């Protein structure tokens, strides 16, 4: 078989394998399961432990107005 034919077959093989893999991810909602079971709990933990400013410590200067 000529080089172009081999390349074409290889290309087709990779194309179909990639699509089959994509279909498995799509059909079995693997992206959703990854987000729900792994990514979201990880991020939640990160956000829960993040140091934040205590906004209540900031004075609310009702009698001081900015220059506008």
């Amino acid at each position: 078989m000529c080089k172009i034919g081999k390349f074409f077959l290889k290309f087709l093989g990779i194309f179909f394998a990639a699509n089959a893999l994509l279909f498995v991810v799509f059909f079995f909602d693997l992206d959703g399961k990854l987000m729900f079971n792994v990514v979201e709990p990880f991020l939640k933990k990160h956000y829960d432990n993040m140091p934040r400013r205590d906004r209540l410590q900031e004075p609310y200067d009702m009698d001081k107005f900015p220059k506008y």
Partner: protein
Amino acid sequence: MAKNIKKALKDFWYGKPHTAEEGGRRLGELYEDKTGLLKHREWRGVKDTFYYMYMIWGYNYVHMITDILKYSNNPIDFVKGTWRYRWMGQTYLPVIHWFERGLQGMRGEALAASAWHYRAMVSASIQQICNFFNADTRLHGGKENQAYKTSIYANETTCGTMFYPWMDAGYRYIPMEMIPYFVTCHVNSHTVLNYIDAVQSIGLPGDPCPMCQAEAGIFVLDDVPDSAPFTITCNEACDASVSTSTLQDWFFDKPLFSLPMPMQFDDPLVKKYCMKEIEECWKFIEKQTGVPFNWDSMVKRLERQNKLQRDEWEKWEVAGKTDYYPINGVAQALFRIFSTQYGIQGDFWEEASEKVKKIMYKCVEKKINPFPKTRHRVIAWSCAPLYFSNWCTWAYNCWGLNCIINMDSLMFNMEIRTDSYENMLEDLAQYHMWAPMRRMAVGGMHHIFELWEYMEKFNCDMVAMYDQLQCKGMQGVHGLFEDEFRKRNIKAFWMPHALPDCRTVSRAEIRRQINDYMTTVMHEEPLDPSLLDFDDSMTW
């Protein structure tokens, strides 16, 4: 045996039929218990399954990335923002699942057209997120860059139209809460609970509208990007939001203009007052930016906004008079409320609208009914549960209730004249006063009963009446609606909810209320019994 093979082949090619009698698809069995994740996605037949996979699922994943590259000044900022802000990371990663919930069971033209509305909303959301992060001083070592200097912060119910005059000069309107609050509730209802709890933790009562609570809670938790040098707040649809503005004034601590949204908007004197307030707001922006009001910039975008409105009228004509309208209830409502509030800041609304019109006219020409199992044409009235905005998709799949139109779509039902400054200002004041949840809900006065007129116009035979339990305004008119429903012999069911807070009334409880109505009052059998009762208490 041969019959079974023939049916299996037919199911493979076309997807299983809708109803139980036809050996239906039983969508409720696709869910995993509690999480609402799918054991596997629905097989919609060869054509629709692969359309969904490539043109919705794959297409939107790819375009989410290209949108970031398009709107972000530096994609690294996007990553930094995701790491910094809970509303970003926790919410926007599962966005494709939001499509899934809204589009479940849809086939053919309904699937394609509704997905274009979702696509436009995602694109608009990514633009807003990028606008936040491009300018955020927290992500840029405290520096106030050019993007920061050209951003205008405003409350999410202050319509984007108000800021068109500065857009030719490179200014952008960023609604402070639209992404951190409003859109998150639809995509991932867990996120907003942190903000509601935060505002109650500092001693505020838990009974006002949870929307006002959540919007203030974002500030309490220090989760608002520092992306603009000044802001415009307003009292939104109800006066609980006045307190939100006070907290925003405290925590934002920058020049702030409070733009009122009058309650009794039918009074011509109130309208004049509102016009003056809008002009005061524009003077405030001129002072802050040093850039004068630009009439041409205003007119250019108003013309596009008016065209979008005319497109919508065209679509409503088909929705009201035929069975060929291909947009499902949730895609209709969210697209409309999002586009009218955010305004023209890109071409995503117009692109989606054109694509939908093309699909719609194909349905009209070929007489394709995208919702063939419709038993009742429903109009949804009052404010919807944000955590279960996809209830209409469920209701169609389970009961054949096709939500044709809703109050959210009809609020900004007008064009704004561009022939003179005076006319434009008068119309803009009207537009501003017809704010979300205001025109036909809180403060709507006589307009709450425009329901009957629209019911007739859209040829609906049933009302889905939202019952926001923490909305004092609409709770006050509950009895009036009950009386009118009886007097007019209108079929109507109530849907209790608490806007963003899924803990007060669960999705399962909302479904139970509709199921009860359909069985005890309507004496009907479900199209898909597997959807009657399932546990999705932990779902996004």
